[in-house]
């Protein structure tokens, strides 16, 4: 069986509001995005990268 996912930090992922909104509009869960911004901030590019591969529909 696949290993259980690593426990996610209880803290909300960091992103500026317009970026969070973009993620939400694209149906992307911020917690699943690898942040590349300073201090672990999720950037717009991170969201776009996450959105780029054809997302498997829920």
């Amino acid at each position, binding site marked *: 069986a696949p290993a259980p996912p690593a426990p996610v930090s209880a803290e909300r992922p960091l992103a*500026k509001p317009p970026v969070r909104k973009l993620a939400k509009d694209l149906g992307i869960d911020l917690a699943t995005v690898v942040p590349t911004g300073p201090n672990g901030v999720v950037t717009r590019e991170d969201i776009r990268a996450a959105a780029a591969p054809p997302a498997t529909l829920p």
Partner: protein
Amino acid sequence: MSAEERDAADVIVVGGGTGGYSTALRAAALGLDVLLVERDLVGGTCLHRGCIPSKAMLHAAELVDGIAEARERWGVKAALEAVDWPALTATRDDIVARNHRGVEAHLSHAGVRVVRAEARLTGPRSVAAGGRAYTAARGIVLATGSRPRLLPGLVPDGRRVVTSDDALFAPGLPDSVLVLGGGAIGVEYASLHRSMGARVVLVEAADRLLPLEDAEVSRQLGRGLRRRGIEVLAGARMTAAETYQDGVRVTVVTARGETRVHEVARLLVAVGREPVTDGLGLEAAGLATDARGHVAPADWARLETAVPGIHVVGDLLPPPSPGLAHASFAEGLLVAEVLAGGSPRPVDYPAVPRVTYSSPQTASVGLTEEQARERGHDVVVNSMPLTAVAKGMVHGQGGSVKVVADRSGGPVLGVHLVGPHVSEMIAESQLIVGWEAEPADVAWHIHPHPTLSEAVGEVFLTLAGRGLHQSV
């Protein structure tokens, strides 16, 4: 191109108000061939009988109020002798005329063909206007707007009994007025008349002014208007209105059940707006109005009716479309983009700001405290008087900021402002609510000092646990 060919268009827009002309301009910018049919003047209610003339007069009213403030608080010896109403209205009308020329020029520049005629639907893709028949390849947009709602048996005579339409064109202001209706229009006209020196009674049937706003807004507004000498009667009903030579005798039953008779020079009826669809031929296109006369979309995301290709924008839409010019504008952009084959973001109605340009002003965006509770939020609220910040003391006019959030975190739900200049302050909160920002996102921005907007900042600092003065 022959006349016959030109009777076809990609898009036919019926009504040239804010909703109609914004649809037309955006559709033309996207390369569509657009025909706009308007029976009166492009610009519609907002430009000719609504937003613009009323805000021009309210700006003058603010200057008049400023003279009193200058004298009473700042040692400025200045006497207000009189208001030359024809001069005031000339400036107002000049602003309207310049805006009107601007809209006409934009339409012509964009290549929108404007037909000045009454339009009637003859089918799901066809319109008759000015004796000609037009067909729309892509779709028809209904933007026929609204007009003042009248009360049965109370016919405006343009002199003693008036609507917001007539109030504009009356030769002068009365020395006393009873305003029936405490929505935005009633409140604004009450405020305007008071600034110009009239005795004003404001009667609202609901238990508070601006009943769609947060209760705190109503309370602060009522207090502000009363402090200015307006007699505010909420929860009151008009039971009779009898005109006589020089005025109207209006009987009102107050919230406490007392009967009062007000003799005033003018009765201004501002009890709401109703959609305009008579003669529009909705049936021919397979459409009907809803119980309140609106044309409801089947698909709110595209503002499209059950008849494919027929869209609706502006005051013709039922709630939650708020009957505001900028909402009509947003709807116009959206429909144009849909017709051009795009898939624009639907209008986020709670995130549309609402402003009342009275003194004090009110401005809000998002959910009221009550609405937030109804939607199941564990509501936390923080409020602050504007006079808690230095610029608020400088203005000396009271006012307040109220922010509604959820105790367990998440986006800011609503922001509610009362006081001077809040019409220009609400744009910030529109972004906060629209982008679903959380209080902590806002709290690391320190607002410029000294401004009224600092009070907004302080409320967010407090909600984010970064406040200096308060704790939640």
